[in-house]
């Protein structure tokens, strides 16, 4: 017998003997269900304009990079300046295998995950040995070095990048294809959001907060710092690689110049800052904001390259805590991490 009860902000479903509780988020702009419904309506509303759907998918992809980053920033206690390195890893793995072996997207996914895993584990010692500042610097440089490597080895096809990657779905109608891929990007966003939300509201999220606030004390309280940092770094790197995989298959081409250089890194950083540091729901707002701003500014012609960082700088000046900061003044007691880059 299924019985559904509704108490103030809690939905209780009883199936036979078991009881499932589902808290309804009363803050409407943070309510995931409402947000997902709104987002899901977007491609349907704009189904006639494929470039807007493409924008929608791009925003989702950007948000998918920012969401695991929200976990990583607290979980390792340092600021990672090169998340796009793993986007490059996932994307290039998917692109190379797809172009040279003709594999479809769902076959390259496990390979991209493995590549993310391998490189994540390879670079994870950085989190434990490097002092806070060194970590940020080395991660700043990693994508740039990767870019040089792509220029050197001809298999990456340097500046033009790899093209001809198998698309995600192959349907006859172009419009349906756009719709379906748009919804797939939304699905990826929802999965990432769900996973990271579950992680952050569990004990792993508490450990991440403890590591961020005071590593030494957490160590003395019985928290195995190395294990949790490495776990966080590897898990988030795998997630970001999956985003790279998706980007490669969605756009059909993958070039390091788009993803591995400083402007892209700045976009990611700004998404995270504007959305509210480390807040995963804010990251979605930040992603949409950045993507829409960039599109709007192209109206001005080539000057938009200057205007974009300028506007973002003004925004940073006026809203140092991002959009989340406006909310935070009312709700002081939720966890709001202090991001430390330099630890003397």
């Amino acid at each position, binding site marked *: 017998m299924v019985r559904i009860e509704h108490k103030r902000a809690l939905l209780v479903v009883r199936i036979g003997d078991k009881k499932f509780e589902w808290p309804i988020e009363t803050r409407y702009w943070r309510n995931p269900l409402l947000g997902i419904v709104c987002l899901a309506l977007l491609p349907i509303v704009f189904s006639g304009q494929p470039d807007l759907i493409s924008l929608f998918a791009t925003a989702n992809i950007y948000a998918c990079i920012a969401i695991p980053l929200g976990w990583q920033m607290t979980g390792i206690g340092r*600021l990672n*300046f090169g998340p796009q390195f793993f986007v490059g890893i996932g994307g290039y793995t998917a692109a190379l295998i797809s172009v040279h072996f003709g594999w479809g997207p769902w076959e390259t996914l496990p390979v991209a995950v493995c590549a993310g895993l391998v490189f994540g584990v390879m670079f994870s*010692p*950085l989190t434990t*040995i*490097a*002092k806070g*500042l*060194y970590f*940020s*610097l*080395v991660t*700043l*440089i*990693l994508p*740039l*070095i990767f870019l*040089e*490597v792509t*220029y*050197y080895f001809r298999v990456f096809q340097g500046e033009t990048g790899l093209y001809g990657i198998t698309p995600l779905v192959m349907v006859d109608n172009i419009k349906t294809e756009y719709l379906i891929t748009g919804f797939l990007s939304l699905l990826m966003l929802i999965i990432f959001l769900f996973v990271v939300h579950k992680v952050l509201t569990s004990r792993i999220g508490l450990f991440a907060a403890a590591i961020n606030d005071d590593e030494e004390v957490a160590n003395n309280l019985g928290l195995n710092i190395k294990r949790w940092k490495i776990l966080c770094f590897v898990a988030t790197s795998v997630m970001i690689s999956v985003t790279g995989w998706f980007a490669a298959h969605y756009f059909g081409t993958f070039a390091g110049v788009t993803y591995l*250089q*400083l*402007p892209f*890194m*700045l976009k990611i*950083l*700004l998404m995270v*800052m504007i959305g509210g*540091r480390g807040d995963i729901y804010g990251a979605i707002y930040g992603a949409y904001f950045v993507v829409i701003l960039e599109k709007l500014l192209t109206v001005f012609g*080539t*000057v938009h*390259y*200057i205007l974009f*960082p*300028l506007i*973002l*700088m003004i925004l*940073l*000046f006026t809203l*140092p805590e991002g959009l989340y900061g406006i909310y935070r003044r009312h709700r002081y007691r939720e966890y709001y991490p202090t*991001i*430390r*880059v*330099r630890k*003397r």
Partner: protein
Amino acid sequence: MHAIQSVLVYAVVLGSLYLLISLGFSLICGVLGIFNLGYGATFLVAVYGMWMLMDTFGFGVIPAIVGVCVIQCVFTLTVIYYPIVKRYMEKEELLLTSLLLVSLIVEETVNHAYPVTAGVDIPTTILTGTFEIGAVSIPSQLLVVVVFAALITAFFVIFLTKTRIGFKIRAVSQDPEAARLLGVKVEGVYALAMILSVLPPTVCMLVIAPIWAIEPTLGHSLLQTAILVTILGGLGNLRGTVIASFIVGLIASSVAFFTNPRLVGMAILIIVFFVLLFKPQGIAKSETLW
């Protein structure tokens, strides 16, 4: 034999070049304790400021050099130091993001005003022709680089160790709070350090401009080199930076000669990574400025 000679000669040349590039960055790291990620903008302002003065305003060479120095100081103080560094000294993530943004804005502005095809030509050649060392011939302008690197390093060392202001700078680099309590104007020292730090890049750019391709994106690779050299040498330690820049110069020239010039960046990163694994402080022995 010829290869070894070339490697050594170019190691010295490249080392001096990297030294000029990284000295300012290391100084800021040591004194202010921040990373000036807007350092790439310094190089661009030097080159394109010079070009702007000479081409658009029609200055001569010597007035343009003076003008560029003035522009650099003004730019550093009004754009980088006062609005950004002073405001966000405590909030590091905002600091680094804003500095990167500044660097990007400068790069895009320069790209808009003087795109790559504009043909920037700065006639600051001091020595023309090539110079023969043993079996190696290098452009003589590169020797000027070596000389200037030595001069500027010597200037910095003498300034920091023998003058009173240098003493104050070293005090601030070790403990700003204590220096403040002893009456040192810490804000003034910070501003002075920032001005001092733009001197090597300006000189470097002016000397290297005739023989290098000038394009708006050179800030990135120079910043990358500066970061790697500074990390290797130990953040904020000038002695370590000097040694590290020549080590990196040696690595760069050997990799370039024996394998492929394109692998230089990766080789340097791998070496830095390994050094960090065993000596997280870099190769310098002390945490002080000199």
